[in-house]
């Protein structure tokens, strides 16, 4: 159980796909103009990642190494199609506003990367923890960026007016340059946090060494 929780935290924070590993950027910034789009995208991607990882992990013994890439593609594409049609049927407005980005989940570097590096070699149960960690790590960063962009660029959060009427929306944040800028600041903040975590971990190790030496 502890192992599962640790794996989950890896994806959520320490190896966050967007901020730390810098993969999966493609579909990330485009959906962050509104919080509802970001949540929809994050959950859709988590669904595909979870199902793909579990399925490939469950069948990892029967997938020959030489044809593993086409098979990964088939599995991921199948689950992407499932989520695409499900969203079209039950969340049509959300699906329309996300447009081509739902089908693009199939080439999301995170899913391909995780399946190749992790699911192909691990048991299904830990893959669940990994998929949920990575997927939710992706989602929270998306929602964070979207919250800033929607709040400052539109005065709303998920369509609900939050800022007072006198607030003049700063359109820059809804436009693409604003998205890049907000993302740059997020990465910068994250690198700083990472630096601090590493410093404190190094300091702890130092203290431990000195204890042992003493």
């Amino acid at each position, binding site marked *: 159980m502890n192992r599962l929780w640790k794996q989950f935290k890896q994806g959520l924070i320490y190896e966050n796909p967007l901020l730390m590993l*810098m*993969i*999966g*950027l*493609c*579909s*990330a*910034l*485009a959906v962050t103009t509104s919080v509802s789009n970001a949540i929809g995208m994050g959950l859709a991607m988590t669904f595909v990642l979870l199902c793909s990882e579990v399925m490939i992990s469950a069948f990892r013994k029967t997938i020959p190494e030489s044809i593993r*890439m*086409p098979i990964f*593609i*088939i599995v991921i*594409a*199948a689950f*992407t*199609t499932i989520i*695409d*049609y499900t969203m079209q049927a039950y969340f049509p407005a959300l699906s329309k506003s996300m*447009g*081509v980005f739902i*089908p*693009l989940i*199939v*080439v999301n*570097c995170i899913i*391909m990367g995780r399946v190749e590096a992790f699911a192909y070699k691990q048991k299904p149960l830990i893959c669940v923890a990994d998929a949920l960690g990575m997927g939710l790590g992706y989602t929270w960063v998306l929602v964070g960026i979207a919250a800033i962009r929607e709040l400052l660029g539109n005065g709303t959060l998920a369509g609900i007016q939050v800022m007072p009427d006198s607030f003049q929306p700063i359109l820059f944040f809804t*436009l*693409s*340059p*604003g*998205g*890049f*800028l907000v*993302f*740059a*600041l997020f*990465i*910068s903040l994250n*690198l*700083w946090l990472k630096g601090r975590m590493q410093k404190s971990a190094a300091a702890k190790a130092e203290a431990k060494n000195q204890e042992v030496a003493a």
Partner: protein
Amino acid sequence: MMKIFIIALLINNVVLMRYIALCSYIGMTGEVGQSVGMGFAVTFVTVIATAATWPLYHFVLVPLGLEFLKILVFILVIASLVQLVEYYLKKNVPGLYAAMGIYLPLITTNCAILAVTFENISNNYSFLTSIVYSVGVSAGYLLAMILLAGVRVRIKNSTVPKFLAGTPILFVSTSLIAIAFMGFSGLIK
């Protein structure tokens, strides 16, 4: 049709305005030569992929009622195309093959190529319009790549504020390039 081309190339640029294909944009713009090679490779694959997937969808999938296999079929077509390009380069242009290294198979996961093939369908473009659109989008990709590669050369020789060092400064630069591109929207009446 000219309008669709100009919009795809400059006004609604696939990388700078629509945030598509960012992985390779950040990863492959270390040198100008590398980005040009990648841009041309993507252009080639995109146009061929359009030429292959459009008829495949309209003359095979739709008449058989198999539209739901679109995502599966398109990505497999692109993956096979990239394999073919790899074999061809390995045999006939080994210098380029060696230079591109591991980035060649990465073209398969390039969001822009798949996005173009999907949009040709969802926007109901005719075959000719699809080809024009795919050329426009990939030319826009090439343009964005070259621009950022050029900027990165200058960043190497400048002092960057500490909190922006590394990837953040690349995104800030991209943001500035995007602002410049927004000026192109006056091109369309």
